[in-house]
């Protein structure tokens, strides 16, 4: 594992958290009920907090003077290395909770490994906290998927569509690239291929309880980790970054 790979691995953790956190924060003020508005905003806050910690750490590892703001606001779409799933639009509430359920199941297992590895104790500390938060995120999303799937014919139909559409973005979680492989060999990151069966088991159990059909494993979108994104990310970043890019020295 080179220094650059170490940096990239930590940066990617931050990118997943930031992009999904930013997506969810768009629900603030638009939740279907007050409790949901609060819940989604709280989850967004957890994720953005995780992103801040990972970016600060990544900046230290890189040692070129980039802080959390530089990494969040002054990188272009091609420099972001999040998974494609997290940048997908919020859609309707069902789309949002399915996306959250798919991601949380993966992130929880990944954080559990990270919390126990001994290669980087800062990563372990951030992950140990994130594990606790992710338990809540997973539980919240899974319960909504069950409620909507096992709900009315309309809610079931809609959320099944969400599952079928977003499913093709989940395979990317388990396809390692050179950075992943090097970090796995170094003991910093889990072997992604080994996370797949546990993810599938958890997600399938949730979908079955929700009386939803579990899609077949098949072709998957890929490229997020290499900076090849869907067009949605660019629009999201444009909105997220406009203020600091227009007024780079702006302070609250």
């Amino acid at each position, binding site marked *: 594992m080179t220094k650059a790979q170490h940096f990239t691995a930590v940066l990617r953790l931050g990118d997943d958290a930031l992009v999904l*956190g930013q997506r969810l924060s768009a629900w603030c003020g638009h939740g279907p009920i007050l*409790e*949901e508005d*609060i*819940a989604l905003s*709280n*989850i*967004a*806050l*957890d*994720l*953005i*907090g*995780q992103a*801040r*910690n990972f970016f600060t750490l990544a900046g230290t590892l890189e040692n070129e003077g980039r802080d959390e703001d530089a990494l969040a606001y002054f990188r272009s779409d091609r420099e972001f290395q999040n998974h494609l799933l997290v940048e997908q639009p919020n859609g309707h509430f069902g789309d949002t909770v399915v996306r959250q359920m798919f991601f949380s199941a993966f992130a929880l297992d990944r954080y559990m490994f990270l919390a126990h590895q001994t290669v980087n*104790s*800062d990563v*372990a*500390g*951030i992950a*140990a*906290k*994130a594990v*606790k*938060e992710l*338990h*809540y995120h997973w*539980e*919240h999303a899974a319960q909504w998927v069950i409620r909507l799937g096992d709900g009315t014919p309309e809610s079931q139909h809609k959320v099944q569509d969400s599952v079928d559409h977003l499913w093709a973005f989940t395979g990317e979680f388990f396809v390692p690239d050179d950075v992943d492989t090097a970090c796995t060999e170094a003991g910093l990151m889990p072997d992604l291929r080994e996370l797949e069966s546990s993810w599938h088991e958890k997600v399938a159990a949730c979908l079955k309880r929700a009386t939803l059909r579990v899609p077949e494993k098949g072709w998957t979108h890929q490229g997020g980790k290499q900076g090849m994104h869907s067009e949605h990310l660019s629009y999201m970043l444009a909105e997220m970054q406009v203020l600091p890019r227009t007024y780079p020295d702006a302070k609250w």
Partner: protein
Amino acid sequence: MVTDQERIAQAWVQVRSVNDPELPYLTVEEMGMVRGVRVDQGQLVVTITPTYSGCPATDVIAEDITTAVQALETDARVEVVLSPAWTTDWLLPSAHEKMKANGIAPPEGKSADRAFLTGQGKVVPCPLCKSRQTTMVSAFGSTACKAHFKCNDCLEPFEHFKCI
């Protein structure tokens, strides 16, 4: 000449005067956020551990502690330590009592117990009427650290400080 021990003791007095901005009846020490005070190469350093990753109060708390200790020594600083991660197990017993007195149900049991998530086998008594007939409305509340409950007996809503 003031010894390091005396400097640390005085700094603790200052640190203990800082309250949590979200739970103003609790000090940051009672919250279990202050991990230590030490002298590092002549400089006074207070280490704190944030409660939640995204808790907006963390920055305010760090600033408040910095202001409090800089009243003693202008070059004192606050260091944020993320590992080991903060847990509600670190709350001082007085924090539990003060929460109850302010209408917030404190964390029940140890953070290793995850039963609260599913709501099964976990009773959070109402801090107002002490009834054990309560229901979780939402696992998320007005701040990152709290969940939203209601009491089925006195019908009052109340907040529960999540056990994590």
